[in-house]
């Protein structure tokens, strides 16, 4: 549960008991908490896997204590021993589920450990020259470390997964991240060979920061930009009138995916990249619910004859577009846009969010019952 999440009682409309209760000290409720962690780890290390599984299911307080020390220790020191299923008869299915959950969590911890080792390896640049793919979960590490890695491999990598996002839990605990993308944009040199960029942006990133970073890779072939929630991509600077002016031409870019929640600045971001990528064949624009009637996108505010709105204009100029996943607005607006002759002439597949209730599709019955053929 994250901070602010409604409790089960709230969800069911039952008011919780808010009477103040004097709780006993934690050590009195759970004697294990009084044991020093290193001693506890030594004790637990002597247990079999089955015992561990049973033990782990007994107490959440104990789990909370065991988790950061024992399980990580076991995984990092003996990863193979955790792969086998517990064989102890006393292990219940719940306990097995618990141990599997722990195992998955510490697989992730092990991956992060690998990445830390990668950071340490930055001191030996020769080892990095063969790297082609870099997968960075950025929020775990400092901007300096990420920039160091990217600085070493910038002229050699072809694929970059840069995930700057924070989970809701982390955001609730530690607040927003400090705009890592802006620092990277200033520090990282161009990526001459990068053809696949997968960018998950974090809170406090602005869309012009995203543009600046994407502009470092002029030979992109596939681009995916994802923002997880509405706090992402807050526009820090004033929107640029023509944000595509500073971008290079992405002559090889054929596939882009934008997956955003609602945000006023996003149409500019999409439009900017599309305007610079004349050979796009596959475009996915998901959840970009840009308000078509407000915020300067209506026909009235743009002036008559200036088209429907910006990225429709940009999309309709793509002569090679074959696939369009258009789940980001009303289909009626799309219909209006394509009434212009010659637009989307090569489009073969469209995915739309028709706001159709699934259970209403019997309207598809185009014939009378005389044609009915029962069975499938």
């Amino acid at each position: 549960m994250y901070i602010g999440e409604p409790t089960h009682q709230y969800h069911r409309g039952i008011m919780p008991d808010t009477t103040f209760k004097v709780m006993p000290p934690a050590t009195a409720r759970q004697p294990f908490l009084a044991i020093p962690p290193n001693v506890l780890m030594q004790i637990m290390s002597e247990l079999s896997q089955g015992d561990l599984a049973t033990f782990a299911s007994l107490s959440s307080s104990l789990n909370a204590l065991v988790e950061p020390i024992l399980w990580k220790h076991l995984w990092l020191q003996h990863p193979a021993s955790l792969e086998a299923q517990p064989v102890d008869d006393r292990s219940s299915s719940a306990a097995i589920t618990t141990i599997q959950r722990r195992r998955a969590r510490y697989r992730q911890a092990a991956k992060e450990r690998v990445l830390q080792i990668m950071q340490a390896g930055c001191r030996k640049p020769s080892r990095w020259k063969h790297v082609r793919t870099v997968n960075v979960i950025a929020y775990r590490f400092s901007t300096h470390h990420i920039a160091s890695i990217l600085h070493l491999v910038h002229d050699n990598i072809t694929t970059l997964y840069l995930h700057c996002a924070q989970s809701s839990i982390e955001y609730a605990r530690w607040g927003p991240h400090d705009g890592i993308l802006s620092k990277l944009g200033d520090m990282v040199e161009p990526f001459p060979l990068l053809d696949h960029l997968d960018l998950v942006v974090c809170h406090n990133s602005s869309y012009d920061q995203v543009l600046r970073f994407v502009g470092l890779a002029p030979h992109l072939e596939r681009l995916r930009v994802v923002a997880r929630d509405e706090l992402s991509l807050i526009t820090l600077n004033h929107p640029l009138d023509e944000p595509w002016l500073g971008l290079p031409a992405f002559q090889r870019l054929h596939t882009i995916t934008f997956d955003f929640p609602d945000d006023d600045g996003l149409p500019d971001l999409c439009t900017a990249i599309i305007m610079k990528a004349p050979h796009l064949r596959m475009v996915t624009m998901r959840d970009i619910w840009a308000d078509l009637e407000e915020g300067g996108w209506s026909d009235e505010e743009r002036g008559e004859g200036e088209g429907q709105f910006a990225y429709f204009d940009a999309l309709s100029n793509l002569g090679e577009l074959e696939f369009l996943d258009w789940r980001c607005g009303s289909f009626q607006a799309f219909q209006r846009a394509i009434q212009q002759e010659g637009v989307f002439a090569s489009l073969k597949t469209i995915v739309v969010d028709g706001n159709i209730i699934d259970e209403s599709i019997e309207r598809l019955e185009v014939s009378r019952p005389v044609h009915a053929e029962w069975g499938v």
Partner: protein
Amino acid sequence: MQAIAIPALPALETLLYRTRHPTRACELQADTINDYSPTSFLDPATLRQLAAAPRLATIRFSRDDDVDLTLSTSVSKWSVTGIRGAVVSTYSRGTDQLVHVRTLTRSRSRLQTAPRQEFGGNGTGQSHSIPDLEDGVEYSAHEVLRWEHSTSYNGVIVPAQVMDSTFEEEDSGWRHMPEGRGLQLSDRVWLCLAIWQDSGKQVAIGGRSHVGRGGGPAGIRPP
């Protein structure tokens, strides 16, 4: 299908509609009562939309978020995966055109008050109920998937009996014709359809030209 907007695009081959669950029982109720409405046939408006998309072969409806999977699923596996939709085929010779649309859809019937709220299912014969928050009455529905076939010859609905008679000497039945747009048929089929059209069996339904249940004489033979 009249409610389905088909973009008038020359190269369009596949149209995928993402669908959603009803959030209120009144949505379900309003749609349920439209079963087998007299207007639910291959009407001129739909034919015009299909003509404006000359390569459109499939219209798919799915609530699955995995678009790639939905698009790559073959028509024969629609019923298994919960996808529904329509397969559009057209056959032409000169100015004559036969349109064949087969749709995988479901029929539903209103049942008794359901004991509990239950959403979901993949559309393969499952029951579900939705509480009506407006009047406190619950409706439930049982859905049965089925393929339906509809044909139109030069804008006139062709009854299944006529199609059966027309194709009885063909290698494959009319329900299993090769599917696609702008395909060809044998001269005999075109001749039979022309004879049937000239026989004047059409009746009017809802102000539109339509052919009644008994419009096709058994065994149409070319002269």
